[in-house]
């Protein structure tokens, strides 16, 4: 499985985790994405917005808060290349608290998808991976890192 973030996704993520109530977002995200199988990601809390099941799809995935339900958690917007098991994260927002929204406005959503399309063409996407707490990680916590530079994303 391969994970990619857009610049917009990283920007939003960074803005969200500034709020005290969302400081655990990276952990929640790791638990629900990086520590799950491809099928688990698709089959739990994920709705296919459009696309097809065998090639590529655009999905909305719920990210639950740790020790809480998914409703008050987060919504991530992901493009998936199913045959290659590639996941492209294009946007995220909380459902409650600071920077929350019920759903992404459809005009804004189209803008974000178009931006993703051009970034993908230009190969401007950031490939990321998980650095486990056990793998010589000085922070002693799981972290999402840039696959190329090995620097922490958040």
């Amino acid at each position: 499985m391969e994970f990619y973030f857009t610049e917009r996704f990283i920007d939003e993520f960074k803005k969200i985790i500034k709020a005290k109530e969302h400081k655990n977002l990276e952990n929640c995200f790791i638990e629900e994405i990086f520590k799950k199988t491809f099928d688990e990601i698709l089959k739990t809390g994920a709705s296919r917005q459009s696309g097809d099941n065998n090639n590529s799809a655009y999905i909305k995935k719920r990210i639950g808060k740790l020790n809480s339900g998914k409703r008050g958690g987060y919504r991530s917007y992901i493009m998936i290349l199913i045959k290659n098991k590639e996941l492209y994260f294009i946007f995220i927002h909380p459902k409650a608290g600071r920077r929350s929204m019920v759903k992404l406005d459809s005009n804004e959503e189209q803008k974000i998808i178009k931006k993703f399309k051009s970034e993908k063409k230009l190969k401007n996407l950031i490939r990321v991976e998980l650095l486990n707490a056990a793998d010589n990680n000085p922070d002693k916590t799981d972290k999402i890192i840039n696959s190329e530079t090995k620097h922490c994303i958040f």
Partner: protein
Amino acid sequence: MTIAITEIKTKSDKLIYSYKKDNLSDDERINQFLDKILEIRKPLQRTIKTINKLDDLLLLVTWADVKTKQDKKDLKYIFKTAKIIHKKFLVDYAFLHKRLNKKLFKEILFDFKNAVDDFEDSILEAENVMSVVRKDKKMMSLINSIF
């Protein structure tokens, strides 16, 4: 990943049936449960699991394609029964919240409410996808042009 609407319908019915068998509104049963905390928690945990399974099943609807008249009919049925059972879950939650000791059952009541809220969210999400998003041709062609 492919899944047929009828398969979702059957699974959804089975879960709803198993939930109904464990009907938690039964006053007499709840009174007995109050004497034995552990015995109260077990069916509640079972119900939460059922709600969570129904929740996941409902979102799986968005991974299916509506091809036939029967699919449309089944889809309508799934949403209809989901809304009815959601109301029942809410009534059960209100009943339990009123009757159970808040300190002793704080955690399980919290989990129950979260599961019910998530389920409601899934009903709205799946219904929106199937009836609004899938009809947005502009969006569909944009998505199809990406990969």
